[in-house]
């Protein structure tokens, strides 16, 4: 076999690998969406989940997912952006900075079930918040923080040095420069990164198993008093999210239509994650276009 034939064969192999990868993605998405979409209707989205009969919906799980997501973002976005600003702007090259960087790296690479176990130890058992929305949201904050920190640091580092120096030359203070020059310039990248992280948080389940629990009280959507035990916005009630629900109906569920509920829920979950992905791209491209004036 001469070198040219080998070269052709190798090229064919690489194309095959890429085709397998792309094919895997499209068949996964296609399978999940087409299998599940037929089970999604208004009743499925707005009915309560049933405990042992067929025909349950995912209303509360869907609400819990979005509520938990909102709370997680409320904690993790300001904290993560502050952390990113620290690393990009304030950190001096010393041991503390190196340690902080290691901490971010550790948080980013720990398995999410470890984060969930820590959440159980600290929030559920030590602070006595029990399985609750708050415990879950704080565990997800730990899970999401490193992503936001990295996105912020990268977005700030990508801003041209001239802009920063021009601002200093005009007599602006450090924070003034960050607030009025660096952050606006970094905004498109920052926003894209944050929306992408939203998709990741929305689908996370292992960190929530032992912090937000596997059940939801009988929610009363007419009761918006945050202290009432049946209120949808009570942060101290347990809250099974959509992704945890998929796991729960498949493993300890006794409902006869577990596969159907799981298929429908998976489709909803994947569609939401896809939507966030598309929105992130569109928003990033749109802002980029408007701001660069093309």
């Amino acid at each position, binding site marked *: 076999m001469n070198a*040219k034939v080998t070269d052709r064969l190798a090229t064919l192999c690489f194309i095959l690998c890429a085709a397998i990868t792309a094919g895997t993605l499209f068949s996964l998405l296609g399978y999940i969406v087409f299998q599940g979409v037929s089970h999604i209707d208004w009743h499925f989205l707005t009915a309560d989940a049933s405990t042992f009969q067929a025909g349950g919906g995912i209303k509360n799980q869907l609400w819990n997912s979005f509520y938990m997501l909102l709370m997680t973002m409320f904690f993790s976005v300001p904290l993560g952006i502050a952390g990113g600003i620290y690393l990009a702007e304030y950190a001096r090259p010393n041991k503390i900075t190196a340690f902080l960087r290691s901490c971010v790296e550790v948080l980013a690479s720990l398995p999410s079930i470890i984060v969930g176990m820590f959440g159980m130890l600290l929030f559920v058992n030590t602070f006595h918040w029990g399985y609750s929305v708050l415990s879950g949201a704080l565990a997800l904050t730990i899970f999401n923080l490193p992503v936001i920190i990295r996105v912020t640091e990268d977005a700030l580092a990508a801003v041209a040095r001239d802009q920063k120096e021009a601002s200093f030359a005009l007599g602006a203070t450090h924070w003034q420069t960050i607030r009025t020059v660096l952050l606006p310039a970094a905004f498109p990248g920052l926003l894209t990164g944050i929306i992408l992280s939203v998709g990741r948080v929305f689908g996370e389940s292992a960190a929530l198993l032992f912090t937000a629990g596997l059940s939801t009280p009988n929610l009363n959507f007419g009761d918006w008093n945050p202290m009432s035990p049946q209120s949808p916005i009570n942060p101290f009630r347990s809250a099974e999210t959509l992704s945890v629900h998929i796991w729960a109906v498949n493993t300890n569920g006794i409902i006869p239509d577990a596969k159907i509920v799981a298929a429908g829920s998976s489709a909803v979950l994947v569609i939401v994650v896809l939507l966030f992905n598309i929105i992130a791209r569109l928003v990033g491209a749109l802002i980029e276009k408007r701001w660069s004036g093309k």
Partner: protein
Amino acid sequence: MASERNELTMPSTGRAARAQHLLKGKTWSDRDLKAKIFIFSAALLIMAATVALTVFLIVKGLHSFLIDGISVIEMFVAGEWNPNANPPSFGALPLLFGSFAVTLLSVAIATPIALGTAIFMTEIAKKRGQKLMRPVMELLVGIPSVVYGFIGLTVIVPFIRDHLGGIGFGLLAAGIVLGIMILPTVTTVAADAFQSVPNHLREASLALGATRWQTIYRVVVPAALPSVLTAVILGMARAFGEALAVQMVIGNTAQIPHSLTEPAATLTTMITSSLGETTYGSLQNDALWSLGLILLAMSYLFILVIRFLSYRRRSS
């Protein structure tokens, strides 16, 4: 907002304007200080969270050895995990075996395809390959792990049961599910590694009359090898720590299986199935926290190895 903008474009020329700001107590140096305090406390909080996480899990994980009197040696050597038996046995060997087996299996499945895809993206179809495959990778990463588990449960497990025998649940199903899950991670990092190989190396090789394949396996791959290794270890770390997707397809039987199609269990699947079911503070529960400690230690080990590899890369 408007006043901030003005201040920047006209750095406080008017005395009156400056006085007004002083009266409001909102000068930029005031804000500088407040912002600095917030940013520094955030940095402090991140460090405190990481330290607290590590310390809490270590202390809780050691509880079963130091107070309940489970022998450390027994945990690593004994082959039976049966906390509810009388007397209970806490041999984590089957679980450790399961964890390492599914990790190696997933890496063996994912690495060839991932490297091939990465080479396709960087060496074969440079522009279009990147444009098409990058979004594919991002979407694959974005699919939640329970969805992978659900697909494993409804597609891969029945397929194995029908074509290879057994009940379908087992190491093979878990390895395939994990292999698909780590595919995008390994591919992206490996593609970055190939891309960072300087172009003059390729050009020199091609100028010597080497074909593209010869250039790839004699020049590009050796030059990128340490980073490619990092990619594989990142994939291993992710596979080792994944919990729910594996738990849904592995069968959850704490035994060392004789074949790939027999059910097994891993550290993470044992924690996932039992931590919520046992009473907090009981012997059975404490033993699970020790499994968590082993998982934590392994995660730190992966982090150290990756650090070591990237440190060597930077210094060489």
